[in-house]
């Protein structure tokens, strides 16, 4: 659907400075009887021109509606309003070029808190493994972080000692190898695991518009851990076999004596 603002002048700066960027358009619909504020989450990876449109439908006189735009608590300027019949359209055009422009942008219709719409801009989320990775001593393991429909500029890995994140230096030892088959995933390969390598590992994805991080948990066990229940069960089996065979010898002896 065509924007109701196509006839209105677009800010000149945008056409010259950022004309090479794509334009993303997002709509929110707010009604007079909204019980909860309307929200929309937008995932943004690279700098873009943004057009936000809030559409307010009410039965009362539209011209008395007080429309404001805010980013967080900061009041914004340079927005456009169009009233068509019983619908008010509020438009805000801007450009996001770095992480300072990310955040939450809200359009307000009047004083009531419920009559607003909010756009949340976030960098893409990356996914690791939601379960701990269990390995054994002297194994080689690969920790993977993936980003579904995005390509970060850079990936980095950190190991965590409690709350402090320590970057992993690949050049120092050949214990760690970082590579990724595509741009949207990264792999940390750890060779010759020891129990000290256990803990949390963090992968950071760097975008032009911010950073995203995810945690992967690594557990390193020694073979003694499963060995104890294993030996216990083996002993139980041997006892069972002995009981069964002894019982049979006993009943056969009983039969012989009858």
């Amino acid at each position, binding site marked *: 659907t065509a924007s109701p603002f196509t006839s209105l002048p677009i800010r000149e700066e945008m056409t010259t400075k950022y004309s090479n960027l794509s334009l993303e358009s997002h709509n929110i619909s707010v009604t007079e009887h909204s019980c909860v504020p309307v929200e929309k989450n937008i995932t943004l990876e690279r700098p873009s021109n943004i057009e936000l449109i809030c559409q307010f439908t009410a039965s009362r006189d539209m011209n008395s509606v007080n429309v404001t735009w805010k980013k967080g608590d900061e009041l914004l300027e340079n927005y456009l309003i169009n009233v068509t019949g019983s619908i008010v359209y509020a438009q805000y055009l801007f450009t996001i070029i770095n992480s300072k422009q990310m955040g939450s942008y809200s359009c307000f219709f009047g004083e009531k808190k419920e009559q607003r719409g909010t756009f949340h801009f976030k960098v893409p989320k990356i996914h690791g493994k939601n379960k701990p990775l269990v*390995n054994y001593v002297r194994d080689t393991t690969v920790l993977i972080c993936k980003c579904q429909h995005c390509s970060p500029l850079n990936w980095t890995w950190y190991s965590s000692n409690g709350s402090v994140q320590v970057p992993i230096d690949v050049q120092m030892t050949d214990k760690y190898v970082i590579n990724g088959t595509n741009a949207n995933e990264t792999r940390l390969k750890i060779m010759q695991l020891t129990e000290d390598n256990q803990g949390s590992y963090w992968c950071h994805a760097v975008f032009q518009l911010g950073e995203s991080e995810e945690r992967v948990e690594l557990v390193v066990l020694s073979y003694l851990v*499963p060995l104890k229940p294993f030996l216990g069960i083996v002993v139980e089996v041997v006892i069972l076999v002995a009981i069964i065979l002894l019982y049979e010898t006993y009943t056969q002896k009983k039969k012989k004596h009858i």
Partner: protein
Amino acid sequence: RRRGVFPLPQTAMTPKPAGPPDGGWGWAVAAAAFAVNGLSYGLLRSLGLALPDLAEHFDRSTQDTAWVSALALAVQQAASPVGSALSTRWGARPVVMVGGVLTSLGFVFSAFAGSLLHLYLGLGVLAGSGWALVFAPALGTLSRYFSRRRVLAVGLALTGNGASSLLLAPSLQFLLDTFGWRGALLLLGAVTLHLAPCGALLRPLALPGDPPAPPRGPFAALGLGLFARRAFSVFALGTALVGGGYFVPYVHLAPHALDRGLDGYGAALVVAVAAVGDAGARLISGWLADQGWVPLSRLLLVFAALTGLGLLAVGLVPLAGSQEGCWGALLAAAGAYGLSAGSYAPLVFGVLPGLVGVGGVVQATGLVMMLMSLGGLLGPPLSGFLRDETGDFTASFLACGSFILCGSVIYMGLPGALPSCRPAPGPAPPPPESRELLPVLPAALLSSGGPQSTRDTSC
């Protein structure tokens, strides 16, 4: 009719062995066979849960890791005659105990695997061979312990499969989360070691009809001479054809449901409905068959045919009807398939004593497993190939349903399968083997042609 009599050791005072005890220690053997089934087929089916972790660790594809299970299943079934041959020679007890130790070693070895090849060898070859040594001897021994309640006992033992999946699947997931796949395989090695006490429960039983001396030479031990009997050969051919279609739903029912637009939980429900129907039907069919109202071979034919039709329905059903109707109809077809396949399973083993006599049951069991494995090796890949060629599983299920229907047509050649029109004392007196196929009654009544006359009136 002798019941509940413990088998006496051969002494000078008792020259002739008693008949099947039909209870007593037989129930312990049934419990052992139940556990054997659970620890072999049931465990093999749950093993699929570990495959994704293996694929991740060794950085191989799902197809490569799938070969671990496929190889184990193939070795288990194809080497079954070896298990039955060895147990014919040395008795079921030592063979099953050794098989249990072998399987356990296979799992322990694979816990330390450094590559996928080690897993193919450890789980596929070693554990598969161990399993090949346990299944046929255990089930064959069970058949020897029962006559009047044989099919029920076999059906009971065969539910071990489903019960084990219910128990092992969540436990395996817990083991994988707590100990990783290495620790899980190690502990599964300890779990499968329980096959040894199961083997210990398989007390040797001497029955009339046993060959006087153990067979000499490997071929005699394999029981290939059984193929000389027309009834067994007909059964073997029919079962091999049924095997071509029987295993396809194990592999492709869930993907088929997903293809038809169901989500993960919907597909899981379809599989669960089939599995529950299958497990319940095994017991009911076993009980029903033992009542003796219908000759076992006729029940075999009927349920094989119904399984084939059920699979045709599973393949065809969604072509007619709307989206909502599709889901319900698929569930109904899966349930129908499950009920018929479950009813068919215990009968496969239940008819054997009638075809080959109690003396040959263990060998016959091994041969039947091997024949079904031929179908099991061909069926799923063919089904997958048809899916890739035609785009969905309709052709696959039509093909495997047809295989099973062909098998059931061949079953019509079994004695007793079709109502005969011969006058009352036709073949008189009936030979000991076919006595098993007829409803089992005291010998006195049998000679007067009691059950045969009821069959003739339905001509």
